């Protein structure tokens, strides 16, 4: 029985990826590069050496955070499209602590910077949370607005009051004590990846082993039923968005403390939107999200090499990602049932 369930869960994501890669072959053809060669280069770029594999993990890290943020909110029936903004706020908070509390020892400074990021991301998502829970305002609209405000607001902070020594809109570097540890000096992979895995494990425990997690999932499946069950929908929704925002904020901290070492305006190439793809690919399950993040990390790392060695631009990936979300979103396409059972809302 368990095997059939697993097959059902895996069949759609796997088939979706295969279809996307097939569409990719058509897109690669006009470049003159043989599609198989392009895909081989991509694969080797992701897994061909230890360094490439580290790049894969490094690229997966921000997606792990944004994917978990999206998946957790989706599980509770909330569309947090705002992880991008929460990530920016978290990144800025981590940078400010890392720069202006430089005198603290690392075992205080690192947790403080991470905590500041989580709180900043969480507080930012309280606004849409409150608007949804108390006023009934659609969180999709409010989080989209909050995203744009966050991007512009942090860009303002990095360009004016907290501008560093660089010509671009960026802060100073964070103190060495605030920086996350790197596995090799040359790789971007840092201890933030481990933090991401710990967050995934905690979320798994919370969602599937605690009463709170049960309430969250009940909210996502049927809000009215959850209400009859005695769940305080408004308070749960606010808390749900707060936690989701905290996770996204941590993702921002990882980029600042582990990769760029400073806040750079507009540094995110849409991590939150790829995170939504990752969440759907992982079927909203924290461990599935981890696999989804690794998959996209591998694609990104591989695409860098593909672009250098062949004529195929790495932007192919964004196109494929669009196709993957489109297919995953379609409930009536690629349906699998290995055994009969009554319909169950997802």
């Amino acid at each position, binding site marked *: 029985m368990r095997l059939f369930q697993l097959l059902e869960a895996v069949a759609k994501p796997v088939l979706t990826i295969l279809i996307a890669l097939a569409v990719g072959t058509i897109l690669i053809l006009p470049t003159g590069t043989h599609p198989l060669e392009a895909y081989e280069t991509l694969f080797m770029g992701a897994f061909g050496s230890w360094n490439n594999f580290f790049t894969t993990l490094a690229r997966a890290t921000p997606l792990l955070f944004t994917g978990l943020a999206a998946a957790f909110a989706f599980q509770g029936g909330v569309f947090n*499209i705002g992880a991008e903004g929460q990530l920016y706020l978290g990144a800025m908070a981590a940078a400010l602590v890392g720069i202006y509390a430089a005198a603290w020892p690392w075992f205080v400074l690192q947790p403080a910077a991470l905590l500041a990021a989580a709180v900043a991301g969480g507080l930012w998502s309280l606004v849409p949370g409150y*608007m949804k829970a108390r006023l009934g305002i659609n969180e*999709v609209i409010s989080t989209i607005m909050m995203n744009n405000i966050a991007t512009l607001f942090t860009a303002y902070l990095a360009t004016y009051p907290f501008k560093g020594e660089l010509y671009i809109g960026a802060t100073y570097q964070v103190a060495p004590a605030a920086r996350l540890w790197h596995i090799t000096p040359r790789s971007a992979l840092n201890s933030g990846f481990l933090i991401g895995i710990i967050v995934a494990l905690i979320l798994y425990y919370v969602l599937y082993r605690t009463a709170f997690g049960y309430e969250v999932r009940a909210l996502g499946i049927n809000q009215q039923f959850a209400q009859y069950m005695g769940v305080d929908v408004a308070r749960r929704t606010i808390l749900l968005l707060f936690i989701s925002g905290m996770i996204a904020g941590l993702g921002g901290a990882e980029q600042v403390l582990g990769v760029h070492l400073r806040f750079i305006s507009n540094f995110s190439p849409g991590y939150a939107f790829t995170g939504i793809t990752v969440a759907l690919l992982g079927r909203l399950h924290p461990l599935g999200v981890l696999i989804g993040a690794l998959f996209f990390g591998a694609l990104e790392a591989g695409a860098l090499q593909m672009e250098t060695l062949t004529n195929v631009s790495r932007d192919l990936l*964004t196109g494929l990602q669009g196709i993957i979300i489109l297919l995953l979103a379609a409930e009536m396409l690629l349906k699998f049932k290995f055994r009969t059972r009554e319909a169950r809302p997802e």
Partner: protein
Amino acid sequence: MNALGVVEMMLAATLRMSAPIILAGLGGLLSFRIGMLNIALEGMMLIGSFTAVLVSYFTGSGYLGMLAAGFLGGVLGYLFALFNLKFKAHNIIAGVAVNTLALGLTTYFLRTFFGVRGAFSSPKIAGLPVFRLPGLEAVPVLRAFSGQSVLVYVSISLVLLLHYILYQTPAGLRIRAGGRHPMAVVTAGVNLERLKYIVLIASGVLSGLGGAHLSLGQLTMFSENMTNGRGFIAMAATIFGQNTPLGTLGASLVFGFADALTMRLQTYNFPPFLIQMGPYVLTLVTLVLVVQSTAGRGRTRLAGRLPQ
């Protein structure tokens, strides 16, 4: 430059910057009225911007570029409708998908067809035709209304046309009722699903035209992610404008003015970010105020509750 000259310049810039927001905003408001939250406006605009430049480059005709942009926007609108209505995708996720797809394809093709990363411009790209209103040419300030690209006039005419359609025709009544009381509309024998297809295709055409104005009306070039959130500004404009065509026009003019002001103040080294935040903050404030002033009445639905 004298004060009148400044006013005239700002007015002309406001009209120019507002047109794409008006066009995509009309698409957004039609979708919203029939009960679909359309966040794919951004992707539809982006495809429009790219197609317009591509076709104009190869044919040398701004008109053809504009038509092709509207057509491809419509195709994307159809795709969005198909996944929403036939394959039962969640409309927000389908919207994210369309936006991602549009960003990926335009950037990839920019690189593959033109061999450039970043921006593409060429003297072979013909801009949109410009209309002159000879009667206004001699009048100071009002002169700004003359010499705008054809899509500026189209956008303002479409506002009036849609106002008429929404409030004076049976189709408009069905669209307005479709979002609020879908069962009533279906019971009355209307094919609501078909109407939704038409509305979403129309929103794609409108957004595509808006995109064409960005790449051929304001400038004659295409750059990566050229729309840069204008689809979301258009969404904000429909909400700020209370989901009416005239309100959307007003909101778009306010946001277009903010755009024009940003560019003007940038020459004085004023931080552009704070003005650019304005539309989004105004939209959030509007949402809260509308909900509080109409709590318990039917209009709250228009204030951003899930329209399904």
